[in-house]
């Protein structure tokens, strides 16, 4: 399963969230084969990942792309971890 973190240009914030997501997944004991990558809004396509992660401002733009995790504060590691936890439990991955 693959996560794609999306931000406006794929240069800054999506990369920061990618780092935080990788750390959170490992802390949550997620399987090793989960992938996390980052991209910009313009290149993101529905076949690029199973679950898309973005900030609230871009949520409307990613609607219909696939499953979404929407963050209120994209630098908040606790929020990210909590939402990843819910998603992983939903998928019976942890």
């Amino acid at each position, binding site marked *: 399963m693959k996560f794609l973190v999306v*931000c406006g240009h794929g240069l*800054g*914030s999506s990369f920061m969230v990618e*780092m935080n997501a990788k750390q959170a997944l490992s802390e949550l004991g997620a399987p090793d084969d989960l992938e996390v990558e980052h991209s910009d809004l313009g290149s993101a396509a529905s076949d690029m990942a199973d679950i898309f992660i973005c900030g609230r401002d871009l949520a409307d733009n990613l609607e219909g792309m696939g499953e979404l995790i929407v963050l209120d504060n*994209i*630098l908040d590691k606790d929020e990210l971890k909590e939402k990843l936890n819910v998603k992983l439990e939903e998928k019976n991955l942890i």
Partner: protein
Amino acid sequence: MLEHVLTEEMIQIKRQVNGWEEAIQSAARPLVEHAYVTDDYVNAMIENVNELGPYIVIAPEIAIAHARPDDHVKKIGLSLLKLDQSINFAENSHYASLVFVLAAVDEEQHLDMLSELANVLNDSGKVKQLKESAATSEILNIIHKQ
């Protein structure tokens, strides 16, 4: 890498600005003056916010303005404007008092620097200290102290 890019001449403190456009222009000034980016890059950053909304406010009080890497960026740069009075980037409350400007030359080379910056900005204690800083040397110490 961060300490070689975000040097003291790239850091400014201002009491306040009139609007988020001025915040971006002002924050980018050291990068323009030292020929890291051209004025067109500054305009592109402002245009991005107009088009995509205030997504550059990545966390409460923190904005990272940037645009696509292209001819308007001469080398990798990062500047910071610290505002005593935070500025709203949108009608629905996207306040920032730490306005960073990122200049990237491609999609890879600045990532080490950003991961170092993320380590600082993920630390709420350090963010609070940055907001309360009164001197650029103080800001420099907080960011580069490991």
